[in-house]
């Protein structure tokens, strides 16, 4: 691990531009003894003046100042940001106040984006791997060679195993590249574009409403939020939007102060800022949700009208003796005393929460999304959505909504390819992993990885899975763990160097489109993935070239924006919207659109302002939000079976909990020094991993704050510092995610530990023991 040393000019400068004499070089020269005294005196003078004078020589060339509206690419929310430029360099970013999702705010991750743009560890040229993944040697090749190589491999696949065996994964933070890649694959003959699904906890809606993705929570119009360990003020779906809306919600901007209740074992940032923190045994949150549901049912505190009309599976008549409806399940299995014994939350509190939930309307229950190391995800999400159905807030103001697709113009239809119909497409990362491992329905013959790093997280795509795919191409800005296993690495741009589009804000119902234009030219020999796909299509010729005939990605993007003009409702981001969007009538009728703009004027204005928004939302549109066969909200059957509880293994008495600090939620964040400085949450713990231990638990183990300890699971162990934290539950230890990279760059690599390696292969729950090092 190397760090920037004290001397400016001793730093690794890869631009080939050597400036001044490094102190180290000077000492070497002086040691040789043949150097003229003049050189020595210059170097000494330099060193002395460096210590005493305000240095202005570090500033690169100036130039005219300007501001460009780009999109952040650090997380799936992708805030609209204004980039301040001096000449050709970007010097700061701020939130675009006109973007309805971030309203001028940015989180620390977005604010640190320039450290990614100018990161010294950026991939600078296409690289071909030689040797195996564990000891890779990289050969630098030209862009023309890279395109020719992909072309020849794809042509060989088309005449061999078939075009349908090619797959691509990612696009979560580069939507335009994702759309291009999906289209490229379709034109080539494959339907295997797998979108990055990490930011979408929609499992519950999938079970109950048959809705996947586009699930939204209307926090700003809610009065009571019951969060089941959802990190709402940390790394949940769209952090900036949530921070703003929950601040407004709690401040009572609609007249009455809202109440946020955080149900979690750990005193997280969200728990600290919540109005009430309910300490629950980890992994039993779903049981608590059903306990609250039981009280709602017993005291008839639920929305009977909604349940009668729109809910299936609540109770069955005497003719269906075999099945138990939810009513029976919660009354029989989840009485408060029993739930209290499992969850550690007293029955009085359970009853009180249920009454608050019923009285402070609209009341909303929120699930955490997938949590590594927990097996209760499906159960918990189903239980939480059950509460929302009982509260009757499905598709109502302050409730659970489904965001609508914006009326973007579709690109011209493409000619169907015969290969595509041959086999069923792979629809998820786990299907891709299964296909690679089992060869069924077919072995993927090539995979394109776009701006995602599955090998670092808890994805089913593991190194040995990837090794089975013969040709792996990674588009990436930093050489991450996944790219290190690729055969070909292509340097991708950051979002400030490319055209970008955002068609949805995760978790936010407001229909909007964000547009980002390139603020600066692609640096260090990188090229936007979308542009590379166009170049590749051109080289491929035939139907593929025909389907992607744009000169550049901006042209393709602008073609989509024309649909917003033609829709004749909604509006380009404006001050007016900023002032008025909160008014309920806006949601009912929106505005009359400004029809005076011609198509191209409209597109240019939308690009300049950063996007378009339509505040209308038709509540209670159950035909659109309840997509189940019955057309109703279906109580999931899995709630009828026993809850998946974790029992501690003998010898491993401590429950293990992971949490994701906001600063390290981006896949690239760990290689940004400003983010390393604010890593750790809620307390700063810069530049390293740590394990939170309750003071009593630590005392019993003889551990003090700052001690080095070893956390052992039955299959693995990690070494890290102990943080004795009064906000950790006794016998539950918490480790932050985001550190422990083995690649990515010199700030990230080898720093801290990746605690996910404590989990058994394939996930599953784990308990640990802690020993002092």
């Amino acid at each position, binding site marked *: 691990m190397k760090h920037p040393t004290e001397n400016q000019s001793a730093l690794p400068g890869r631009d080939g531009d050597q400036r001044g004499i490094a102190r180290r070089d000077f000492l070497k020269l002086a040691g040789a003894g043949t150097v003229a005294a003049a050189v020595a005196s210059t170097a000494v003078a330099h060193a002395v003046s460096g210590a005493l004078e305000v240095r*202005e020589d570090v500033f690169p060339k100036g130039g005219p100042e300007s501001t460009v509206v780009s999109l952040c690419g650090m997380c799936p929310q992708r805030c609209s940001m204004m980039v301040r430029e001096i000449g050709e360099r970007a010097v700061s970013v701020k939130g675009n106040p006109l973007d309805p999702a971030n309203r001028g705010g940015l989180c620390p991750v977005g*604010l640190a984006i320039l450290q990614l743009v*100018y990161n010294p560890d950026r991939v600078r040229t296409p690289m071909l791997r030689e040797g195996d993944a564990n000891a890779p040697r990289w050969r630098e090749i030209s862009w023309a060679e890279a395109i020719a190589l992909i072309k020849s491999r794809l042509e060989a696949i088309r005449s061999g195993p078939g075009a349908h065996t090619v797959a691509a994964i990612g696009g979560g933070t580069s939507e335009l590249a994702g759309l291009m890649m999906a289209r490229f694959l379709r034109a080539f003959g494959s339907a295997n574009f797998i979108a990055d699904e990490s930011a979408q906890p929609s499992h519950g809606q999938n079970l109950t409403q048959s809705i996947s993705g586009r699930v939204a929570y209307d926090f700003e119009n809610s009065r009571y939020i019951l969060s089941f360990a959802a990190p709402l003020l940390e790394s949940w779906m769209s952090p900036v939007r949530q921070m703003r809306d929950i601040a407004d919600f709690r401040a009572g901007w609609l007249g009455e102060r809202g109440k946020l209740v955080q149900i979690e074992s750990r005193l997280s940032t969200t728990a600290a800022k919540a109005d009430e923190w309910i300490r629950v045994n980890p992994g039993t949150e779903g049981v608590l949700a059903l306990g609250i549901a039981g009280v709602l049912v017993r005291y008839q505190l639920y929305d009977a009208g909604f349940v009668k009309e729109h809910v299936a599976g609540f109770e069955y008549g005497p003719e269906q003796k075999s099945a138990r409806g939810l009513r029976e399940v919660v009354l029989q299995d989840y009485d408060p005393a029993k739930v209290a014994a499992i969850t550690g939350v007293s029955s009085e509190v359970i009853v009180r929460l249920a009454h608050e939930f019923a009285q402070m309307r609209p009341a909303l229950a929120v699930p955490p999304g997938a949590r590594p190391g927990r097996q209760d995800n499906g159960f918990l999400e189903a239980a939480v959505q059950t509460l929302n159905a009982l509260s009757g807030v499905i598709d109502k103001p302050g409730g659970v909504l489904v965001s609508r697709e914006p009326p973007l113009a579709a690109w011209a239809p493409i000619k169907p390819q015969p290969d595509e119909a041959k086999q069923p497409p792979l629809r998820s990362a786990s299907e891709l992993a299964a296909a690679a491992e089992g060869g069924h329905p077919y072995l993927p013959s090539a995979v394109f990885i776009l701006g995602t790093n599955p090998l670092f997280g808890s994805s089913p795509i593991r190194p040995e899975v990837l090794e089975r795919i013969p040709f792996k191409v990674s588009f990436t800005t930093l050489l991450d763990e996944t790219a290190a296993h690729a055969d070909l690495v292509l340097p991708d741009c950051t979002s400030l160097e490319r055209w970008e589009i955002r068609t949805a804000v995760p978790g936010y119902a407001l229909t909007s489109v964000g547009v980002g234009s390139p603020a600066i030219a692609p640096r260090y020999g990188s090229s936007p993935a979308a542009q590379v796909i166009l170049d590749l299509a051109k080289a491929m010729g035939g139907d593929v070239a025909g389907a992607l005939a744009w000169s550049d990605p901006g042209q393709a993007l602008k073609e989509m924006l024309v649909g917003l003009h033609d829709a004749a409702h909604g509006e380009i981001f404006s001050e007016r919207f900023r002032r008025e969007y909160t008014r309920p009538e806006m949601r009912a009728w929106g505005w009359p659109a400004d029809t005076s703009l011609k198509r191209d004027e409209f597109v240019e204005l939308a690009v300049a302002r950063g996007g378009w928004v339509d505040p209308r939302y038709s509540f209670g549109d159950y035909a659109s939000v309840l997509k189940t066969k019955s057309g109703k909200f279906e109580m999931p059957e899995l709630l009828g079976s026993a809850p998946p509880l974790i029992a501690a293994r003998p010898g491993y008495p401590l429950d293990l909990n992971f949490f994701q600090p906001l600063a390290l939620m981006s896949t690239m964040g760990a290689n940004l020094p400003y983010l390393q400085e604010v890593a750790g949450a809620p307390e700063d713990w810069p530049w390293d991993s740590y394990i939170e231990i309750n003071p009593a638990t630590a005392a019993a183990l003889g551990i003090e704050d700052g001690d080095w300890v070893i956390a052992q699971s039955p299959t693995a162990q990690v070494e890290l510092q102990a943080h004795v934290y009064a906000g950790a539950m006794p016998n539950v230890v918490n480790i932050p995610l985001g550190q422990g990279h083995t690649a990515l760059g010199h700030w990230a690599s080898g720093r801290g530990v990746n605690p996910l390696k404590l989990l058994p292969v394939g996930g599953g729950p784990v308990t640990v023991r802690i020993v002092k090092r």
Partner: protein
Amino acid sequence: MGQAMPRWGMVIDLDRCSGCRGCVVACKQENNIAPSTQEQAQSSRMISWMNVITVVDGDYPDAKLRLLPMLCQQCENPPCVRVCPVGATQKSSQGIVGQIYPRCIGCRYCASACPYQVKYFNWSPPSWPREFEQSLNPSVSVRPKGVIEKCTFCVQRLQRARDQAAFEGRKVRSEGEYVPACVESCPAKAMYFGDLDDHSTEVAHLVRDTRAFRVMDELGTEPNIIYLKEST
């Protein structure tokens, strides 16, 4: 309209703040603060004009955690100014406590005198990887080794606003025209900035809130940073 000179001040609403540390990063980017190393962070030599202080009270299950954004309190009666032997730290006519780097002799008296511990000494020369120099803000100088540095309320932004106002033959507006970087991008909109002496501003309205307090007010420092405590 009030007095001749504005009294720039900030209100931080802890009820809205979510402790995300966006302000910390925004400040570093705006003010050319060099990235630290792990060694500097561990020896408390990391420079961070804006910080989020965390205080844990009590034991589980009654533990409470408070998050407090902490920056120079821009005191009306700043102890750091009184102890400086060379007049390097001074209060400007606009109410901003500034540091004149070429004048500073690095004695660190001010750092000891500051009850808020928001004056930072440059133990080593600032250093950036060459690539990061591209994103340096040309409006802010880079501080050498051996001097104290601190929050300036982004005075470069005030200067710019004053230039613009002078060009248009008017005064700088009491709010909205001049905003420090930390306030500008706060995602929870927990920070407000403006002229405390102009009663039409939001900050002047908020300081009269019953939740308003100043940190260590009993010392008589009279901070121009006013916090609003969390509601219940």
